[in-house]
């Protein structure tokens, strides 16, 4: 049974310096408030894992939380580049950032292998690309029946998996719906897990299209209404596209970013969005 904790307590207990941490959510239900709390707790030397590092990872990287990034697509969706991510890779600011780079199919299968207790996954992937040359967690395996060679990727088993969902009940059973990405796999692949939710309810109502993660497979649940903003939570609020566009200007300039960091994160108990 998951424990229901305050977000700051949950991050303090679950996320340690040097951990491998995955915050997942595929455009929808991005655990932004949890990411901000990790910055606020001044965690360092994290290996950050995420298929689509976007604004929240740009912020965590710029804040110096990470020394490694495992990913498959890094951009500001609908806007353009991630300037803190680029600055870290191109100029090692604020600290050097090692990268481990995959495709979406590869990352998704790495989570599947991790959730399945397997050391690797097989896919038709990376064929003819330059990625395997630079990424050690891509290899090949031969089919014992046909002799065919296929791609293999190493399982992902983060220390902590963090997701955001619409609802949980008091036993920590988590319910999410709409675009569900790799959230279930990220929770099941991780040693510990934190789920922030829009609301904790007495009983989960039936919901078409819902994915339910049983509470006994979750470490902690935190009630954080709006915890996915500026991303969205289907049935609760829309994506704040203006925030993503504003981020472009804030993040282009180191000083402006540092000011944002001081005001919006360290200067606030909880960011407004």
């Amino acid at each position: 049974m998951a424990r229901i904790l305050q977000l700051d307590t949950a991050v303090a207990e679950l996320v340690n310096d040097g951990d491998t941490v995955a915050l997942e959510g595929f455009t929808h239900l991005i655990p932004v408030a949890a990411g901000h709390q990790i910055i606020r707790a001044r965690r360092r030397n994290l290996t950050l894992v995420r298929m689509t590092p976007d604004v929240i990872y740009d912020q965590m990287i710029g804040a110096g939380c990470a020394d490694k990034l495992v990913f498959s697509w890094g951009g500001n969706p609908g806007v353009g580049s991630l300037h803190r991510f680029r600055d870290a890779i191109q100029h090692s600011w604020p600290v050097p950032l090692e990268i481990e780079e995959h495709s979406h199919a590869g990352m998704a299968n790495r989570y599947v292998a991790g959730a399945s207790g397997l050391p690797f996954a097989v896919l038709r992937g990376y064929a003819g690309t330059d990625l395997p040359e630079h990424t050690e967690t891509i290899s090949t395996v031969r089919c014992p029946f046909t002799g065919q060679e296929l791609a293999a990727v190493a399982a992902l088993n983060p220390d902590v998996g963090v997701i955001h969902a619409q609802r949980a009940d008091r036993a920590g059973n988590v319910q999410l719906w709409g675009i569900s990405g790799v959230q279930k796999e990220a929770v099941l692949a991780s040693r510990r897990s934190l789920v922030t939710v829009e609301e904790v309810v007495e009983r989960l109502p039936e919901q078409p299209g819902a994915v339910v993660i049983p509470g006994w497979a979750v470490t902690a649940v935190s009630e954080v209404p709006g915890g996915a903003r500026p991303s969205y939570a289907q049935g609760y609020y829309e994506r704040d596209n203006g925030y993503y566009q504003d981020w472009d200007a804030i993040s282009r300039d180191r000083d402006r970013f540092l000011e944002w960091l001081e005001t919006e994160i360290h200067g606030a108990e909880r960011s407004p969005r």
Partner: protein
Amino acid sequence: MSGPRPESATGAEFSSDEMMTVAAARSLSDEAVCFVGIGLPSTAANLARRTHAPGLVLLYESGTLGTRPERLPLSIGDGVLAETADAVVGVPEVFNYWLQPGRVDVGFLGGAQVDRYGNINTTVIGDDYRSPKVRLPGAGGAPEIAASCKEVLIVMRHSPRAFVPAVDFVTSVGYGRDGRARDRLGLFGSGPVRVITDLGVLEPDPETRELVLTRLAPKVEVEQVRAATGWPLRVAERVEVQQPPTENELGILRDLKATLGNGESS
């Protein structure tokens, strides 16, 4: 970037980007199953669905199958995609059950660089991966879309910086560095069949797989395309000129773009 402003049959002006989008939409046949990326591919696919291909099946990598958005999505994970989909599945499933086995007819790709053999780069500019001149977003779903869709359409604006002799990094394979990689790799898909640009269309030579100019956008000259291409561009024996967008196509396209609201997606 804004191209020349020729006129449609009925005299309406259109941009070269509009011509490119319309040409991309026309490449999609009705009832095809199409794996759609955000931005121009999504615009083109939704235009096709509203014109000649109402039965087009759209898949987005966010796991929305058979989606029919009333307005253009801003990102591949927009709520509108989930709300109007036949089914919403997880990301592992969309790649493993739907893309990987070769069920998808057409995949749409763009990129920062494409080379003469249709290889695409969206990873780094420069020849040192660990210390790039410019760090690009990376692969996303593209490598497996390039490998597994029955056909790939590439859509990119023409410029010598983008159309290079050989990409700095192969993120998604076209026909490989030598034009012959595809058979060797045993891929399900047949590779890029068409590169649609704001200046015209390139298609692979059936023998060498080198991209060759086969169509010109209205009022565009061959020399203009050669100048915008980073390798000595071959030209097909017969080069057709694209039909300009019809009034209907233009109207629907502009209505569609208006639904985007703030900021087009990239």
